[in-house]
């Protein structure tokens, strides 16, 4: 058995989100900042008339900010009743990962990443970290303070 993941890169790591959760992938979009919002909320984008909240995954995962001038790609995902855009460094392909290679989060990971990762697939050339989308989108006061 295997599962399909849409993959993307973030600060040198390879991440994956289940393909069925991904609505589309977009290049950099103009964002309207949302003052007073938690730090990880990167603003709002216009997705063909729909207002979508963008989440800066680097910030959400406690990684250093993207270098000045580097564009962010949008991975648009469906959550319970909302549509969100995850800001990532670059987009990878769709990977079919064999369930047998799945493991719980490796011990080497710590901090927010560990909390928001469901586990990892040992691919031949890399480790595919599976993002827990729903958990990542639960941003409340804790992250706001971060």
């Amino acid at each position, binding site marked *: 058995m295997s599962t399909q993941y849409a993959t993307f890169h973030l600060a040198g790591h390879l991440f994956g989100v289940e393909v069925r959760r991904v609505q589309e992938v977009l290049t950099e979009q103009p964002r309207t900042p949302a003052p007073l919002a938690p730090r990880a909320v990167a603003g709002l984008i216009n997705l063909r008339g729909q*207002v979508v909240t963008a989440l800066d995954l680097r910030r959400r995962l406690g990684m250093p900010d993207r270098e000045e001038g580097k564009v962010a790609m949008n991975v648009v995902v469906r959550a319970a009743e909302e549509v969100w855009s995850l800001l990532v460094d670059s987009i990878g392909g769709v990977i079919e990962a064999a369930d047998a290679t799945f493991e719980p989060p490796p011990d080497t990971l710590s901090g927010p990443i560990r909390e928001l990762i469901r586990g990892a697939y040992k691919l031949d050339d890399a480790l595919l970290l599976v993002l827990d989308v729903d958990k990542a989108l639960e941003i409340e006061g804790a992250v706001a303070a971060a």
Partner: protein
Amino acid sequence: MDDMDEIVQEFLVESYENLDQLDSDLVALEQEPGSRELLASVFRTIHTIKGTSGFLAFSRLESVAHVGENLLARLRDGQLVMTPVTTDVLLRMVDTIRALLSSIEASHSEDGVEVAEVVAAIRAVLDGEQPVLPPAAGAGAEVPAEEPAPAAPAVEVAAPVEEAPAPAGPPADKPAAPAGEKASAVEASIRVDVELLESLVRQAGELVLARNQILQRAGALRDEDLTRACHRLNLVASEMQETVMRTRMQAIDHLWSKLPRVVRDLGNMLGRKIKLEMEGGDTELDRTLLEAVKDPLTHIVRNAVDHGIESPEVRRAAGKNEVGTLKLRAAHEGGQVVVEIRDDGKGIDPAVIGAKAVEKGLVTAAKLESLTPNDVLQFLFLPGFSTAAKVTNVSGRGVGMDVVKTNIERIGGSVDVESVVGHGTVWRLRIPLTLAIVPALTVECAGQRYAMPQVNLLELVSLDTERMSKAIEDVGGAKVYRLRGALLPLIRLEEALELKRPAEAEMPTNLVIAVLECDGRRFGLVVDRVLDTEEIVVKPLSGVLKAIGSYAGATILGDGRVSLILDVQSLARRTMRSDGIEHAAAAAAATTAATGEGQRLLVVGLGDNRRVAIPLDVVTRLEEFKTESIERVGRREVVRYRGEILPLVRLSHHLGGGSRGARSAGEVDAVPGVVYSARGRSVAIVVDEIVDIVAGQDARSDIDDAGLVGSAVIRDRVTELLDVRAAILAADPNFFTEQAQNELAEASKRLGV
């Protein structure tokens, strides 16, 4: 008269529909003469028509329906059996009824339709005789007059028939809209699935957005043809939007029509005598909003009957008319619909509410002290707050005013309450006309654009930096702008949203104050620039942004960028203490003399270098009174102010000190003063000098002098805290009593004002 027309129209529409059914039922009856079900259905239809026509005084219609009903009753009860003759007679009856309806629709009268023959024929059947039916072909007047056979030569047959129903007729929002060539009532109104309307409205909203974007782009292109096309698009889109909106509008009467019964039944049950008055029932509202308002409105009305209006004995004892009045009023007001529910009952006692709030742990007794009565009433809207001493089956079922408030706020409305003990209570619901499209003002602040609903906007004041530094008084953290003499508390959007300006950005040389009103309070929102007014479609926000509470939604502006919509109400609430400046209640003076935490004080100077502080929330306006407008009436002084006569007190006299230095009142042309208004009455307190406005201080000693409640150190100076109530009473001993009004009126008469 219009109401009557509407009833008649509804009756016509309903009857036409029923008659169509009747035709097929009667025909089916012939096949199945014994079907009680069919007979009962036919009977009901005719019965309804008879009843309504009697009520509307259409006597011919009634007489036909009446005999028809008799016949149908016999058939239904099995006393007569359907025969083809009976069917004929009944069908003829249906034709006659239809002819009568057409006549009523066309000329509002039944004249011209003969009914005697049909009535006689039905009677004959009832009496077991052979009816004499007029030949159907000759019954021109009895056949619906919809198709006057064109007696035109054959060659012209192809010419369009004038009477043909226009397929592109305007979507009639009311059945009663016979425009020129009137389509029959059935054609003029159709039933449409609400879902269909909703999606039309949504699409119209999107169309408006797309139009905005196109207009913006086209403006830059300077292409004449494109510009013309855009103009047309603009017009059509606006009109379409308006029309589509109208399809969803319904008169608030639809809700109100149920209330007389509610009030009557409840009143009887509780032994109250109540007169229900309704005004503005034709005010229209988006139907989804109407639906959302239904329960809150009913709840408030029940509440007014249960808790507001007293029993006749109590009312008599209080010298009131034993019949209580409950008045509903609806009206359009600045793009909103305001619905008022006013009773002349016992009112709500802030003391009782306050005590209850303390008991429930909603507020500490100390904090309560510093609240105005109006603030105290707001506890009614807190979850779990119910003042009913015992739970009755009328109200106090745990569904309280908090639910009312939540429901009304959910649709972008607001609810507030005012009450005077012994005189009654007014609940006021403010409801937006529609949710889908809102006229908004777009502003810029720190490089970002924000939209805010225009409903709240009163005016815009533009200030350059130089004037700004003078006009905005920034003391102790409380910023105020003096707008034509009235104090306007200010909120800087930049601070409220914690916006950061890029380091290299220049500070604006010009600021704009948007004067907003919300919940009856005014305040100024300071922004960098006003950009435009635009119609915006409100889009929902994700939960995490909604939770911030500063945004009412988002929208997409003409250039395709997203813009946040400011929640003016919560901005005001978050940034200001709830007692605004133009917002002081009568007894406030008594309770607010003690400074509460964060309370703002107006510091005034008196002679001998004295400083006195007055709570800002009892200051309605700051004024300069011309010395010549001050006059003596008996032993008291009054001042002419805005066409009124206000009782006046000189604070320096009241507090037993001399006026400043050697200057006597005669030497100055004008003196500064504070106007305090409550319940339509005002007094003026004259001081020597207005010094400052400061945030509340807690340092307080017990030095207590006549007319003062204590003192505090404000800005390194000992400042006395004025006992406002005493000062007001010094100006007008009857300010808090009934007689005052009369006395003032008399004084006015004497002075010829």
